[in-house]
């Protein structure tokens, strides 16, 4: 399915929150998506990250989507200490590259993302931040779309008669 970046961000924002993560992590994910046009995307990573999970029953974050929670904090440490940071038990190198690009652009630094034996390493390097061109259209695999929208739907509040009548403005008919 072809989607706009804004659509993907809208689904992504809600899907991250649907996984039980705070809104800032959702925003960080959306900012990372802005760099999709500049990187090869491994959509299977995204499918893995957004695999269905019962968050209410399981607050011990699975490694697959720990990246959504931990990437911003890991990059904070890279920025503060100017030293490599290891993210153990994480496999999503492509997704982390998108997060790294966002920090590169914001702080005019360069960060290499490398796979290690037991995870991924974020390494500050000499060099200039890479340019990013926003994607015009994104070919989103059906499975990814399905997973994102399913998780996003966790954030929708079921309708009641009261909310239909009083939760928003305007009449149910407006023929004046």
């Amino acid at each position, binding site marked *: 399915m*072809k*989607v*706009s*970046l*804004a*659509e993907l961000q809208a689904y992504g924002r*809600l899907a991250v929150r649907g996984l039980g*993560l*705070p*809104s*800032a*992590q959702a*925003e*960080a994910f959306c*900012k990372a998506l802005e760099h999709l046009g500049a990187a090869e995307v491994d959509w299977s990573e995204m499918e893995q990250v957004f695999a269905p999970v019962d968050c209410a029953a399981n607050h011990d974050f699975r490694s697959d989507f720990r990246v959504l*929670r931990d990437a*911003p*904090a890991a990059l*904070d*440490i890279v*920025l*503060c200490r100017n030293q490599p940071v290891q993210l153990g038990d994480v496999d999503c190198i492509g997704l982390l590259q998108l997060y790294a690009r*966002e*920090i590169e*652009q*914001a*702080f005019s630094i360069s960060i290499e993302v490398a796979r290690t034996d037991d995870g991924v390493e974020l390494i500050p390097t000499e060099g200039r931040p890479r340019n990013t061109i*926003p994607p*015009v*259209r994104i070919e989103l695999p059906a499975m990814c779309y399905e997973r994102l929208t399913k998780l996003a*739907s*966790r*954030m*929708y*509040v*079921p*309708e*009641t008669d*009261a*909310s*239909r009548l009083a*939760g*928003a*403005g*305007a*009449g*149910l*008919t*407006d*023929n*004046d």
Partner: protein
Amino acid sequence: MSKAAPPQVALRAPDDVMQLARMGASFPTRLSFLRTILRWLAQDGSKVERTVWNINEDGFGHAVYQVALGGYDYALIAVSSELEPEQRTDRVIAEAWDAAFVLFDGVPTAEDIARVCQMAPLQEAGRFTEKELVLSRANKSVRLFAHIVDCLRNGEQPDRQVIRNTGYLMRTTAVYGNGKFGIADRSCIADRPGLGGPFAAEMLIVWLIRGFTHDLVEHLGGAELDRDLKRHLGIGNSTGLGMAPFLVSHPELMNNWVMARETALARVRALTGISTAESEMLKLLANAAKTHLDEWTVPDPEAQSEIEQLKQDWADLTGQLDAILDQSQPIDELIRISQVFSVACQELTVSLVLEPFGHLVDSLTTSMASRREKALDPRMSVPDLIRLSKELCSWATEANFENTSESARFWYISEAKLEPRIGRRYEETGADLERPLDTARQIKFMLQSLRTWDGDLAGFLRSFPVHRDAVLRVQRLSEYPYAEIRGNLICETCRPIDMLRFKLAFFGASKFDPKSDLWTRITLAQGAPLFDELDKVGDWWLAALPS
């Protein structure tokens, strides 16, 4: 060599400007987005051409209008359909409309037009491409539309008072841009001349839709409307809660809008002496505003009472204009004297004083968009963050969230067509799924957690990822002082309508007609140039229809 910026006085304080009550008293200015796009069209010598008129005798079918701006072609594709009265609602949950519209990128082929005619009436249920820049829909103002058609068919012009009472033939109930439902992302047009400003494409389609409604009513009436009546028919809009979260989720953009307006105000306040022509212009405009206020009547008693107060204040203030404009720093004096009147009068004065000074302020519109947003800086020291929070966020830190009235509301997305809604936290279910509009509460809680933290900020954010957003909001305020609404958006007394009016005024809306605290109708482009009047683009601010 760059040109030096004009002199200016100090900007108004964010703690004052960004109060909800003041935001909810906003008026359109010459920096409003609709005014800006029309100036672009005029400067570019743009012409609107109706290239397709496939509308039947009942007014149903489609039409295409073509306009060029900044070297690019754009088209309005309008689709008019039959609508049963029971389906006509301004709510997001509507599923059919009198008319649907697309702003198309380029000159559409017959296949493009056929595809848009099929998809546009479906709105949210349709699927669009990057060739579509804006998607919109509108419903007729049934009584006025019928009145005008009847009059024209009888060889008469419509009653001027009836036109004044409503002011538009159709009202849009959504104007979707930036990638919604597959249309083009804003980044596709952000660098184009004229469309780079905030909501420029949306305001372009709104102005084109207004022209279509004129053509449609004349087509059905079989005669032309008088030009001054037609000019007074703007385009209505019905706006609900969807606009409010936008302001919270686009803080830098909001800052840039307000910063431009406040800088413009600071520049004109710094003027020492104004020309006779400028002085006369201010008096003329003040009088035009008076006529506009006389014409502005709304059914809601509380809102009407505020308008009556404003009319009285305006008369009292503008009665002193001759004396004030003779002062050595006349605009500053006018603003200073306006402070004794209602907030609405103060904000109307701000809007008035910008009007004659386009040469000083219009260039500020180029700074109203937002590109790269500020990122959280984890290198800030914790004491600095605490100090900034205390200095800049008293509106958050002083709220007492142990009092349930301070957290009585929650904002959410309903599963019913994803309509944005607001609920009562302690009476309804769904608060666990609330949208993060609780900025004041987030900042207060972040400060509480910081009180017992003795590490660095990066460590704090790692331990408390939930506070990340609040940290960024505080940091941002040090560079973008107008980036936050200085109020608690989840408290019992919060009026979402104030946020709606603020945003709509920046669009260029007037004749605010609040229907409750949750939604309002407004009029856009009333008095604006018609398609063949772009050479008169400077002559409208707050429109009135003479008797």
